């Protein structure tokens, strides 16, 4: 199957004809509009190896994320970065190409933190292997992590190895009535204490917290923090991760604003939901792209136009000239003909 991918890419490179690398299409909305002839990765599927005691799983790009997570659950393990699926067809390859992490991101780490290795077909059709299946590996540049979030612009991720962890033995969620400013301060103060926080979400005057870990640690934290138990917690966190929560409904553009976690509340037009202990602020806002990006920059962060009918302002915050040049040159190193998902990350490449 990889040979077929290699041949398709070589042939497209010869014709300088763009290819749109695509798994289940669950994240077609993300980034700038995809273009090019579709190269479907789903036939290259399946877990290559899974050693629970090594805490490592290796799987092919077309593996359904639900299947992978089910195999891990059977051995009481999981993907600690809790990736959003955004649809039943989500594949591992798409998950890594998008590089998105879920509610556990602040406490456990991001997708890239758990990526140990990747096999990649580059823009010349070469199958290359970076990293591996071990936790510590500093031989060569860290190309696997570079590929996370690159939206398929550097190569076709054929196979990937991820670090996995045991599922926490105990989990409980709490709810607090609290205003935004106070919530941000408390979230940062709590994060500076040895508490087993694993997720947070503030919306419309209420703060939801999830605690995960050893049973005695969770019990002690509940006693310390107070609040009331959150009913239907599992469904709630799923609705946040998958953006099925009522907040995400409606026609206004959805902005994903990443900030230093202790940044003061933003004042934008629209509605807000805060995750990641204050570091991720979702806004449903009709404010112009310039206004949103200026506000994000002023607060020390950046804003992504996550879901919108009109992405003419560009999905991602523009890069400064030096970084833009480095991006173009890296892109050219991986994909000299510029055929892999062109424009998906930035219009210029």
């Amino acid at each position, binding site marked *: 199957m990889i040979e077929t991918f290699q041949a398709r890419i070589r042939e497209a490179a010869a014709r300088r004809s763009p290819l749109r690398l695509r798994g289940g299409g669950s994240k077609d909305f993300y980034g700038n509009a995809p273009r090019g002839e579709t190269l479907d990765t789903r036939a290259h599927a399946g877990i290559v190896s899974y050693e629970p*005691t*090594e*805490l*490592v799983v290796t799987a092919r790009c077309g593996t359904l994320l639900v299947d992978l997570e089910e195999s891990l659950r059977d051995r009481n393990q999981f993907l600690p970065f809790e990736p959003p699926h955004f649809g039943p067809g989500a594949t591992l390859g798409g998950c890594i190409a998008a590089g998105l992490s879920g509610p556990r*991101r602040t406490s456990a*780490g*991001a997708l*890239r*933190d758990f990526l140990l290795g990747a096999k990649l077909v580059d823009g010349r059709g070469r*199958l*290359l*292997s970076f990293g*591996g*299946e*071990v*936790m*510590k*590996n*500093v*031989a*060569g*540049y*860290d*190309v696997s*992590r*570079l590929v*996370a979030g690159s939206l398929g612009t550097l190569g076709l991720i054929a196979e990937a190895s991820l670090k996995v*962890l*045991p599922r926490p*033995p105990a989990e409980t969620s709490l709810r607090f009535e609290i205003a935004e400013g106070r919530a941000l301060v408390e979230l*940062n103060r709590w*994060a*500076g*204490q*040895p*508490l087993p926080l694993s997720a947070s979400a503030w919306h419309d005057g209420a703060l939801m917290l999830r605690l995960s*870990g*050893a049973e*005695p*640690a969770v019990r*002690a934290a509940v006693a310390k923090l107070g609040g009331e138990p959150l009913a239907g917690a599992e469904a709630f966190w799923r609705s946040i991760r998958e953006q099925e929560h009522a907040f995400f409904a409606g026609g206004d553009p959805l902005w994903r604003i*990443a900030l*230093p976690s*202790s940044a003061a509340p933003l004042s934008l037009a629209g509605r807000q939901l805060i995750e*990641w202990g204050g*570091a991720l602020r979702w806004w449903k806002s009709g404010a112009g792209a310039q206004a949103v990006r200026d506000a994000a920059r002023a607060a020390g*962060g*950046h804003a*992504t136009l996550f879901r919108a009918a009109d992405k003419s302002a560009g999905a*991602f915050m523009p890069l400064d000239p*030096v*970084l833009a040049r*480095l*991006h173009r040159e*890296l892109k*050219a*190193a*991986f994909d000299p003909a510029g055929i892999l998902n062109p424009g998906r*990350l*930035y219009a210029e490449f």
Partner: protein
Amino acid sequence: MGSRLSVVNALRGFLPARAVLYEEEDTRPYECDGLTAYRQLPMVVALPETEEQVQKILQACRALGVPVVPRGAGTGLSGGALPPGDGVLLSMAKFMRIVRLDPLARVAVVQPGVRNAAISEAAAPHGLYYAPDPSSQIACTIGGNVAENSGGVHCLKYGLTVHNVLGVRGFTIDGERVALGGEAPDAPGYDLLALAIGSEGMLMVVTEVTVKLLPRPQAARVVMASFDDVERAGNAVADVIAAGIIPAGLEMMDQPATRAADEYAGCGYDLAAKAILLCESDGTSEEVEDEIARMKAVLERAGATRMTVSASDAERLRFWSGRKAAFPAVGRISPDYYCMDGTIPRKRLGEVLNFIAALEKKYGLRCPNVFHAGDGNLHPLILFDANDAAELERTERFAAEVLEKCVAVGGTITGEHGVGVEKIDSMCVQFGDGELELFHALKRAFDPHGLLNPGKAVPTLARCAEHRRRHVHSAELQTAAPHSGLPRF
């Protein structure tokens, strides 16, 4: 290529005289890093104090076509800071300021010459610390940690440098300012921060580092477990993880290593054991009690012959002191030692240790083992006498065979010490020409003229072709040691 005079004159245009060293008595201290087998006097040493001076040094070297090698504390173990005989050694030692420490946001912004341990010391009054703790942490700097993606004994639970650094800023060889990552998560575009961390000073010079601080765990205790068989100890590690436990630290030492360490540090190890495990739990006191009980049950079932749980923090630190002092301890029982850094899947541990034992016989050299068991990172220490040229050569062949074995069982030639000059030929074993070509292309994107730390980390394709050819014909007849042109001792 610039002459010494032209370089000195250029640098003195904007640096004070004391910040430009070129007399042999002044440059001698910079001739090597922690890998003392490789030495080279730098043509010039520059000691800037400001970012603007770094920028001007790089621009001057770029204009003169002179190589630049950045250096932190010089504790690296792979020769990554080996100076250029025809260039400038850029010492970042004067960048020692903690620029900002924000206890609420749990970040510290520090200059690259700040020592690893100094960050945790500064954060301690706020109940916070910086997690990665390489054994050299009292001396090594955060700039060097970024260059090498350094680990430590707590990586399994808390990650490496790449997991704990939020952002860096610095300059390309052209003197262009670059800021990668930042306090806000998921910076737009490619993850250049991950690319820069562990790039061994090949891509840019870092002048400021933003690190994540974590709350210091309330409690920590360590179990010292003895085993009468090395392989059984290795299997016990897998059993701990299979039981759903992620220890804060999980280290293994074999008997020759515990004997050397105990004699040096007086750390109270069980010297009758063939191997010991140090298995640490941290968290709230309730959590630690619970986890220590579970760890002990697993270790007992796995065949531990004796177990001691640290009763106080002083005792816990004493148990760790032997492990952290393992390298200097071994240094006392042998004129020289050669430290390897391969990483393997844990399940292959028994096989690899048996392989090393066979090589001890083959080469007539002893090799105690310390091992970051939790994450599969081996540090076999080959004991040798560098004054004996034949012994040094046998040592290098011994080491190369071990690294090839690590690759063959699905591991890597270096887990945390870097490639530097030391393991550059072993890179040809781990990677094919396609990967190496791409590495060179990445390097060119940042440093088109190849002036930053040239000749390190990534071998040329020609060098690998030569290495493979020699290898195929006869490893035994290999007489020209790598870097035979470099002065030794």
